[in-house]
């Protein structure tokens, strides 16, 4: 703990020594594409409309771990009663709940001009915690099963069919466990929702610590299932192996899948399938730390980032994410081809039916820990 605080302190020192009065520090969790988005697209756009302002993007690492680092830093600065040097943070759902409960964020959405454009319930409810007002969804991302249609004519429609398919085709399905990124975590939580009992309770609560005992059968089945799959090293590892033809199927993030395809890192014929009863997806949130000195600038930055134009051009077209604000606000901003491409494999009604939220925080942790105990060990 102390060691990471020291590291955070050093980072803060370098950041603040490089900063002038008009520097907006944006800390973002997530993969490199998140940093690229702010550094290459959003930052320059904001600097153009705000002459003299410099946007500095800092990546804190993939997955919930990246958000955890932002939380630790803000929390340490709160305890030291010093101003925070992050002006805008981009965080995952789990951390958003923790930060709201710890009074680390500002309630800013209601005064934001784009605040009313959000309709999804993830903007108010983050894994069981009420976050309304504190966060603005940057985008929504979804996991799905990617497959190679040359090898698989009829992909499985649901988890039960997938289980049978893997039994018949050993070592052709790959996922990255739970330590190598969220696509594997999403697959595992989807498995528990499918085979472990009441999925609505996992998504909405209330939390009951005894529930995890009911997953024993599902976890034992997953352990057996794992005998016939390939455990890949990471989100990108799954895509790599799909690309090299080493596996025929695996869970991926939809946005990464489309981006890799566009970059020529995946064969163009690869397809996606969002199996029932559903796989989770999640938003990333824009939030403003409670003790930033640049509150006005930060709010303007987020207003720009969630404006229909930026959501259409940056989020959907360039980075293949689903928009954070209601998609109907994007009508007319986007050409039909880009729109169709986003929904080619997963039509909007399938997305609405099978795109699930992750389980609420305590269940989420229970699932991961039970997996480590019963499946991985």
């Amino acid at each position: 703990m102390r060691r990471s605080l020291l590291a955070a302190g050093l980072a803060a020192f370098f950041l603040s020594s490089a900063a002038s009065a008009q520097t907006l520090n944006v800390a973002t969790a997530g993969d490199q594409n998140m940093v690229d988005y702010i550094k290459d697209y959003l930052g320059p756009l904001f600097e153009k409309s705000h002459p003299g302002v410099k946007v500095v993007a800092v990546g804190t690492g993939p997955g919930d771990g990246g958000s955890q680092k932002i939380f630790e830093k803000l929390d340490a600065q709160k305890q030291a009663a010093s101003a925070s040097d992050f002006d805008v943070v981009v965080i995952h759902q789990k951390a958003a709940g923790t930060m709201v409960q710890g009074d680390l964020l500002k309630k800013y959405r209601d005064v934001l001009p784009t605040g009313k454009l959000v309709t999804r319930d993830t903007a108010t409810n983050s894994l069981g915690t009420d976050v309304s007002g504190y966060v603005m969804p940057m985008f929504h991302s979804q996991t799905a099963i990617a497959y190679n249609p040359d090898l698989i004519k009829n992909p499985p429609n649901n988890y039960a069919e997938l289980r049978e398919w893997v039994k018949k085709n050993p070592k052709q399905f790959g996922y990255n466990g739970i330590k190598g990124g969220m696509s594997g975590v999403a697959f595992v939580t989807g498995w528990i929702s499918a085979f472990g009992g009441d999925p609505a309770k996992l998504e909405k609560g209330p939390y009951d610590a005894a529930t995890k005992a009911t997953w024993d059968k599902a976890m034992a089945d997953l352990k057996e299932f794992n005998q016939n799959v390939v455990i890949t090293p990471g989100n990108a590892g799954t895509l790599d192996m799909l690309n090299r033809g080493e596996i025929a199927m695996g869970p991926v993030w939809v946005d990464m899948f489309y981006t890799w395809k566009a970059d020529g890192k995946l064969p163009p014929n690869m397809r996606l399938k969002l199996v029932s009863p559903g796989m989770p997806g999640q938003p990333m949130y824009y939030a403003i730390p409670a003790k930033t000195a640049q509150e006005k600038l930060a709010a303007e930055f987020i207003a720009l980032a969630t404006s229909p134009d930026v959501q259409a051009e940056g989020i959907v077209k360039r980075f293949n994410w689903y928009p954070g604000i209601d998609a109907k606000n994007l009508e007319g901003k986007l050409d039909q081809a880009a729109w169709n491409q986003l929904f080619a494999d997963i039509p909007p009604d399938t997305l609405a039916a099978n795109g699930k939220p992750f389980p609420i925080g305590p269940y989420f942790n229970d699932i991961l820990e039970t997996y480590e105990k019963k499946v991985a060990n």
Partner: protein
Amino acid sequence: MAKPSLLGLLLVAPALAMIGALFLYPLGFSLAAAFTEPGGGLSLMHFQKAYELYSTDILFTLFIVVVSTLLTALFSIAIAGILTLGETPWLVAALRALYRWPLFIPFIVAAQCMRTFLAKNGLMNNSFVALGLMEPLQATSLLDWRGIIITFVWKQVPFVTLMLAGAMASIDRATIEAGRNLGASRIRVLLELVLPQVGQTLLVGLVLSFVTMLSVLSVPMMVAGSQPTMLTVDMAFRINSYGDYATANALGVISYAIAGTVAWIYLRHSVKREVQA
């Protein structure tokens, strides 16, 4: 013996302070955290949790590191032996020029290279297929425990060889020549004359390699999937996903214990030699 002067103490004070602040304090802190329960009392609960979740990974880590150390020893002795006793000048020259290269490549870069080199349809298998040495269907991915071992050995052999070849070069050539004159083969000279004289250096090199490999995070994370995996990955996961420093510290203490055992063997050995000398 001279009295410690104030100036001398002042000179070492900054270094001591650094060790205290950046090593001893965090070490003590992590040890304490591993044995403290949330209420504040002493407890082994974090170790119990570490065992419940990661017993396979503890064994896996030991297996990987021990096998890698043994293979490193084998290859280093072979290379250093050729460098010292080789009679084919061009081979010795080529080997001498080549063997150090991996020393300058960081673990993470090595891991990244191995990821594409050892994959099922990676560079290695594709080359074998192109050379007609293998059918495409026989190709298997080495990106599991074998990949970790290959990367570790590839990275640590030059380090141990560097130390070993240096030590071998400085021993009395007369002993080697005497052995050769009496008709001993080069293998026998290496194993019975040269190696016993450089055993201490080999041991130091291997102990350092062992501890280094125990602490590498990037290689198991990038080369292999996460089930099973090495303790470093589990520690990073506990901290990154849960902020659970207690269990991570317990795993850390288990790592110290493994590294400490090796250090103890080494210390005992060197003390024994000093007594003999």
